C-alpha cells in the first residue's frame, strides 16, 4: 500500500503497526524532510551540520513517535524536536569551540559567504546575512514566520512562548533585518 497520501493520523497508526512501521516512517520523512531541513539549514547554515542535526531529529522521531500522544499535531511536534535539537547543536558548538556567542555568529556569517552560490550583491543573500545578526531565539521566530508562515498559535506551541511575545519578537526582527539590508 502506498502511504504517501495518508494523513498524519493515519501515518501514526501505520507507524505503530510493526509490519508497516518502516514504510510509514519513510512517508513521514518524505512529507516533512524539506521543511525541517530548511528550518535547520537556515539556523546552522552549513549543509553537513543541517544534515547531521536532521538525522538526529529523525532518529529521535523514530524512537519517540510510538509514544507520541497526539496532544498536538505531528507537524508541531516535529518542529519542536527539530528546534530543540538545533539549539542543542548550536550550544555544543559554542562549548566545543569555547568561544563567545558572537564568535559563533560571525562563524555562521563566514559560512554563508563561503557558500558556492554566494553573491553579496543579491538581496536574498543580504537577507541571509541580516538574519544572522539576530539573537538565536529571535532568528527562529523570524524563520518560522517569514519562511514557513507559521501561525502564531502554532508557533506558540512549538516554542512554548506566548503569542504576544512572539509577535513582538517577529516585528522587531523584521525591522532589524530591513535596517541591515538598507545599510549594507
Amino acid at each position: 500500500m502506498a502511504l504517501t497520501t495518508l494523513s498524519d493520523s493515519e501515518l501514526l497508526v501505520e507507524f505503530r503497526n510493526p509490519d508497516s512501521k518502516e514504510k510509514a516512517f519513510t512517508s513521514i520523512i518524505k512529507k516533512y524532510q524539506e521543511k525541517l531541513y530548511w528550518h535547520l539549514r537556515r539556523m546552522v547554515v552549513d549543509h553537513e551540520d543541517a544534515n547531521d542535526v536532521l538525522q538526529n531529529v529523525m532518529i529521535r522521531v523514530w524512537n519517540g513517535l510510538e509514544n507520541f500522544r497526539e496532544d498536538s499535531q505531528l507537524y508541531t511536534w516535529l518542529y519542536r524536536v527539530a528546534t530543540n535539537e538545533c539549539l542543542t547543536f548550536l550550544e555544543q558548538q559554542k562549548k566545543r569551540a569555547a568561544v563567545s556567542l558572537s564568535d559563533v555568529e560571525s562563524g555562521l556569517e563566514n559560512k554563508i559567504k563561503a557558500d558556492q552560490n554566494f553573491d553579496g550583491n543579491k538581496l536574498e543573500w543580504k537577507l541571509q546575512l541580516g538574519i544572522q545578526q539576530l539573537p538565536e531565539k529571535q532568528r527562529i521566530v523570524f524563520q518560522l514566520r517569514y519562511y514557513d508562515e507559521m501561525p502564531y498559535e502554532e508557533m506558540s506551541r512549538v516554542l512554548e512562548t506566548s503569542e504576544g511575545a512572539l509577535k513582538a519578537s517577529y516585528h522587531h526582527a523584521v525591522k532589524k533585518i530591513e535596517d541591515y539590508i538598507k545599510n549594507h
Partner: protein
Amino acid sequence: MNELADLGSDLKDHDPQNIYAVPAGYFEGLPDQILNRVKALEATNAKEELTYLSPLLSKVSKEMPYAVPARFFQDLSEVLLKKISEHEDYQTSED
C-alpha cells in the same frame, strides 16, 4: 522659571532646549509607521502582516539561495533507515 528661582536653582538661567537629535523625517513618517504596526497586529496571515511591517522584505524572494547536494532529499529516508538499523543492531549486540 519662577519656581526654579524660588528653589535657588542655577537651572533658572538655562534655556530649556532639546539637545537630542531625531532622524530626519521621523515625525512626518510616524503616523504611517504606527498605523502599519496596528494593521500588522491585526493581519490574518503572515503575508499580509509582512506587507505592513516591511514592504521591502515582502518583495524579497523566499527561494533559499543555498546549495544542496544532488539527490540529498531522494536518498535521505534510505540513509536514515540504514543508520537506525545499524544503531539497533549495535544495541542488540551490546545487550
